[in-house]
């Protein structure tokens, strides 16, 4: 039963990946649409970033002094100047850990 559901979910997911790549040809997208598509990373990823920071595991908003906000800010600053992915992630995590284990402990 669960396996059937997993297979359906998998087929559906595969279609989301395949449809635009295999079934749509370039001519079907006009220049205007292509110009808008340039913004896809900026238009999609904040929908993963913001809830990941501002909403906790129980689906409610965090407090304004939550360590995650500080960690995210540090990651933004380090990422902006270092242009380095590992430095960005580590800086965010380490500053978050510093707050939860050292400061708020």
């Amino acid at each position, binding site marked *: 039963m669960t396996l059937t559901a997993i297979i359906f*979910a998998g087929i559906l997911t595969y279609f989301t990946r395949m449809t635009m790549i295999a079934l749509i040809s370039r001519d079907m997208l006009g220049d205007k649409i292509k110009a808008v598509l340039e913004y*896809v990373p900026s*238009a999609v990823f904040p*929908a993963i*970033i*913001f809830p990941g920071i501002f909403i906790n595991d129980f689906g409610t908003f965090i407090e304004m002094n939550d360590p995650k906000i500080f960690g995210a800010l540090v990651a933004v600053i380090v990422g902006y100047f270092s242009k380095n992915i590992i430095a960005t992630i580590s800086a965010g995590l380490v500053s978050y850990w510093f707050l939860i284990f050292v400061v708020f402990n």
Partner: protein
Amino acid sequence: MLTKKQLFTRGMLDISPHMLSVIPFGIICGAIGVELGFHPYLVYAMSFIIFGGASQIVFLQLLSGGASSLVAVASVGIINSRHLLYGAVLSEYLEKLSFIKKLLISYVVVDQGFAESNKFFKKNRNEEFLHYHLIGTGCTMWVCWQIATLSGIVLGSFVPEELGLKFAIPLTFIAIVVQDLKKLDHVIVMITCGLSSLLFFDAPFKSYIIISPIIALFVAALLLRLKK
């Protein structure tokens, strides 16, 4: 001209820093599945059949919370519908491929792979075997995801929960978009998307994940019109 092998390797190298967040997240995903009471084989089958990070956790949480299979499947479809946007962007670079190759390559299109390959494609439009970069990012992600979720399933959550490693996921995506903060139009689009995602967070089937990009793309279209 870079060879297929060079492009593949470049793809692997470009995505590997993201494994710092993907691997702990995969372990957590595997461990959660078993903790929620699902058979280990089923939890692993998801990594192979669905192969979609957060959607796998949501699927199991919904089912274990008593939701119908239909609701769980629909939620996975909606969460993963963002791939339609990635596909639309990538189609421009993959159009020369045969239909079969397009069908095969589609299986390994993931968030971080799309992001890194798209950055590479923009700078190297004229390479003949560009798609090998996407295969490189996608396969690296696939292998790491399978190993990470499997270890979570077999070993349990050996990553201490207190570390809050789920927080590495937003951080990995910050690393992807942070350089675009230099451009005001991109900043506006990002803030629109981010605020919409918080506003619509409680929308049914986790649909905030596709509603907010659509709103943000409308704003992008408006900005393009203003620019002219």
